[in-house]
Structures are given as C-alpha cells and as structure tokens.
C-alpha cells in the first residue's frame, strides 16, 4: 500500500503537509488545577495538572531544593485501542511515554519558579489513532496553561514520515504508522524553534532528515497557532464575566 496516491493525496485524503482536524477545550474538569481535552483526528486525549504543591510520597526525597519536581503519568484507557489492552498503565510502553512526556514538558516549564514543590501532569488516552505522544504533549501544554503554571513557551509535538522515499508527510495517523513508513516524532518550542525531544523509528537516508524534520517543525508551528487561538478564546470567554472582550461596535467597553 502506498502512503501517497498518484494524485498526491494520503490514505485519509489529506495533502502531505496537512494536519488532522484539531479540536480542543481547556478547563474540562473543576477539581483539577488545570485540565484540557484535545482531539487530533480520531486520537482523543485528556490531560490534568495538579500543583504546584508540596512534594508527596517518593518525591519528598527526590524533589530538588531549587526547582519544581515534575511528575508525569501516561495511561491509556483499556478500550482506547482496536484490541483491548490488559492494563491501562505500568507497562513498558507507558513508562517510556511518561519519561518522554516529562522531557518535553520540563524544557518548557519554568521549574525554577517553584522550588521545593511538585507538579503532577496526568494524561489519559481515551482513543488511540496514531500520534498519541504528540496529542498528549499538546493537551498537557493546554492543561499547564489552564493551571497557570509559568512556562517559557508552549511545548508542541508533531510527527512526520516519508512517503515514496522522497515526500515528507506531517501528522501521521495510525494507518500510516502501521503501514510501515518511517516515523519521526518531534517535541519543540515553536517560537524559538528549539527541539525538546526527537525520536525516530524505521530508517531512511540521512539526506532526507533535514526536510522531514523541517516538515515536523512546520507542523509544530501550525499546531502552536491552533493552541494559542484556543487559549486566547478560552481566556476571553472565562474573563467575560468581568466584562473583558465585550466591546461593542464603537469600540467602547460595555
């Protein structure tokens, strides 16, 4: 099966540089300090943030004195995949995901602002359809913003692949992942253009790396724009009770 048709369209009808539809919402839960829900195509993810609070349990010994201890947990609902999973968390794959999630988010969070405290970030994949890691990073970023945690900039992740040995594809779906093309996942800080995490599976010639990486970073920038819009809209809506954003035609604040 070819990843790209003769007409230049992908298996799900997207163009090579087209993202899946992203829909997201901040503040889905009341009890958490911050929460967000994000849909990227058919991948659906929930993220919550608790803290900064006093270090609990094992973190009490591990928490550094000059910055916050960031604790991440990645779990998947047992019904999230095509085949039912036996455990929602604790398997190797989830543990690896938790570590990678932590790496990407710590590079964006201003941990030095919260010495001697702990920050919990929990993500739950409700439905998996490729790009789980990317959706989790993006949802966690929104949840962190919702919690009011100080950040350098957004941490945004996006994946890319290579079709027909030459054309880079952005935002890989499960079908494209399993068809066996290479998969490059990048978490970046899109404003400064820095790479926070990069992971690659399968092989392609190193000559192609720059353009695949560029496509992934481009995707990160596009997602950043979507997330930023969501944040602005959310703040406008929640602030509306106090009259923000309610400007009439003459430009006078009501």
């Amino acid at each position: 099966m070819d990843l790209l048709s003769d007409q230049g369209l992908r298996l799900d009808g997207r163009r090579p540089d087209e993202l899946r539809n992203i829909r997201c919402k901040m503040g889905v839960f009341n009890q958490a300090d911050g929460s967000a829900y994000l849909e990227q195509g058919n991948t659906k993810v929930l993220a919550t943030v608790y803290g900064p609070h006093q270090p609990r349990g094992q973190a009490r010994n591990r928490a550094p004195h000059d910055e916050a201890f960031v604790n991440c947990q990645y779990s998947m609902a047992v019904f999230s995949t095509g085949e039912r999973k036996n455990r929602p968390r604790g398997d190797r794959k989830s543990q690896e995901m938790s570590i990678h999630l932590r790496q990407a988010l710590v590079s964006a969070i201003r941990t030095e602002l919260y010495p001697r405290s702990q920050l919990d970030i929990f993500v739950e994949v409700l439905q998996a359809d490729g790009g789980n890691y990317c959706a989790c990073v993006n949802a966690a970023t929104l949840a962190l913003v919702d919690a009011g945690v100080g950040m350098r900039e957004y941490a945004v992740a996006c994946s890319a692949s290579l079709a027909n040995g030459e054309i880079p594809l952005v935002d890989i779906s499960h079908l494209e992942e399993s068809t066996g093309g290479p998969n490059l996942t990048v978490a970046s800080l899109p404003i400064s253009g820095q790479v926070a995490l990069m992971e690659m599976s399968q092989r392609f010639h190193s000559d192609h790396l720059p353009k695949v990486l560029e496509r992934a970073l481009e995707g990160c920038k596009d997602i950043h724009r979507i997330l930023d819009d969501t944040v602005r809209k959310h703040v406008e809506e929640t602030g509306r009770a106090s009259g923000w954003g309610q400007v009439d035609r003459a430009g006078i604040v009501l």
Partner: protein
Amino acid sequence: MVKSTSYLFFFISFGNFLSVYFIFQNDLRNDGRSKQDYRPIELELDIVTHANGSARVRLANTDILVGVKTEIDVPTSNRPEEGKIEFFVDCSANATPEFEGKGGQDLATEIGNYLGSSFASPLSFDLKPLCILKGVQCWKLYVDILILECGGNLFDAVSLAVKAALYNTMVPRVETVAMDGGNVDLQLSGDPFDCWRLDITNIPCLVTLTKIGEHLIVDPTAEEEECSMASLVVAVTESGRINSLCKTSVGSLHPQTLTDALKVGVEVGVGLNKALNEALGREEKRLQSNKPERFGFLK
C-alpha cells in the same frame, strides 16, 4: 441554647459536618437540594469509536466513561450455555493525584466486585443470548469503567454509565457456525451494521443512601460523603426489585434504619431507572438523526 452550644463544641472538628447539619434544619442541603434529589446528570452515548458500545455520564462533578468491547471466548465448564461479562474499573489519576500508579486499586476493586454481584443473577442480566455454540464458544463482554473525576456518589454514576453503555452495545451477528474436526469455524456477518442489542430491562441502577446525623440522603456530594456516618448501596431494577445490597464505608446502622433505607432506595431507584430509560430513548433518537453532533468533552 445550651444544647446547641454543646453540639457546636462537639462537631466543630468534623469541619463540614457543622454546615451540613445546620442546613438540614430547613430540610434543605448545602446546595439547595432536598434529601432525595439528584444533582443534574448528563449522558452521551457512542463516544468511543473503538468500542462496541460506550457512554459517558457526568453527575455534577463525577465523570464516568464506560466502554464495552466484545470478544469471542470459551464458556466456563459449569455454565456451558452462558456467555461471560467482566467489569474492570480504572481510577484514573486525572480524578485525584491519590489514584496515581496503583493508588485507586482498592476503590476500583470495591466498585467492580459490587457491580459483578448485582449482575450475577440471570434475573438481572441474562447471559444465555451471549452463547454462540454450547460449551465451545460464547461472547465475552468487557465492561471497562474509567473514572475521570470524583465528585461524590461514584456507585450511582458508574451504574448509570454501565447500563447506558450496555444499551448502546452492538454485538456482531454470527452467520454460520460449523464444526470442523475439533475446530469451530465462525462466520461473522460481513455487514458491520448487522448487529444485535442486549436486553437491559432488568439491569439494576445502584442507589447510594447516606446517613448524616438523623437524615437519610441520596446522591451525596464528596463533602457530604466525608461527614456521613454510614452508607448503603442498593441495586434496584426498573420494576422495583432489589438485586443486591451492600453497606459501605465505616460506621454502623440500626436495623430499623436499614428497613427505612430500603423503602427509600426502591422508590428512588425506580424513578432513576425511569429517568435513565427516557434519557436513553431521547439520546438514541438524536443519534439516529442525520449527522448527529458529537459533544464528548468539548461541550
């Protein structure tokens, strides 16, 4: 007023107890409900596409997502004519940081076991239709419950979501079954929409009755649970039959309170079942309309 001062002195350490106790004087609770009122419930069906059936129930701040998956399995030797049903509860750390890692396992087991016992009788859920070939093959229903936010009254919310998800479950139709030597050859229908639905008429709803002071209330909030003396969970069917009964949490009840509680439980449970059935009918109609809108967590 000497008496009330002594109350004050005695109960002040219970924190919330004080406010809950005094507000009960007017027969109203902290949030303006009467003793047998539920908080607003939201229900949405069919929101996880990878599952055969799914439902999300939001009972004020309690958020439950249930997915039902079907798999083909071998029936147990002592019940060769029946299918299987298994409940798995996952307390997500999203609900509270205490559930991180294995933190929520005790609560999860408690809820799972109680659901299992309330479904155990063929009078509440008949497993015979799930049999494909007697003693050889049957359907197994995995009912996976994900607790996303805890705002009190988990049992009731979970049971509502489970009943709704089972209502939404589509079991694929088996076209032919042939025995080839010792092997079974199953042919599933080629049309993915050729499915049958489960009978949910007798599936019970759980009603939690909580005793605070001298009062018996339903649908306790997390704060009310905190200052309750004892709780009773009753599984009530549509027709008012009690399928199982369980006293949870610490504290004790007088037998007389127990009988009173059962009466209230049946009355509330019948109403709850009726309300759920109506809501399921409305939701089903909405889903069958042209291009129904999916809300999920975006609302």
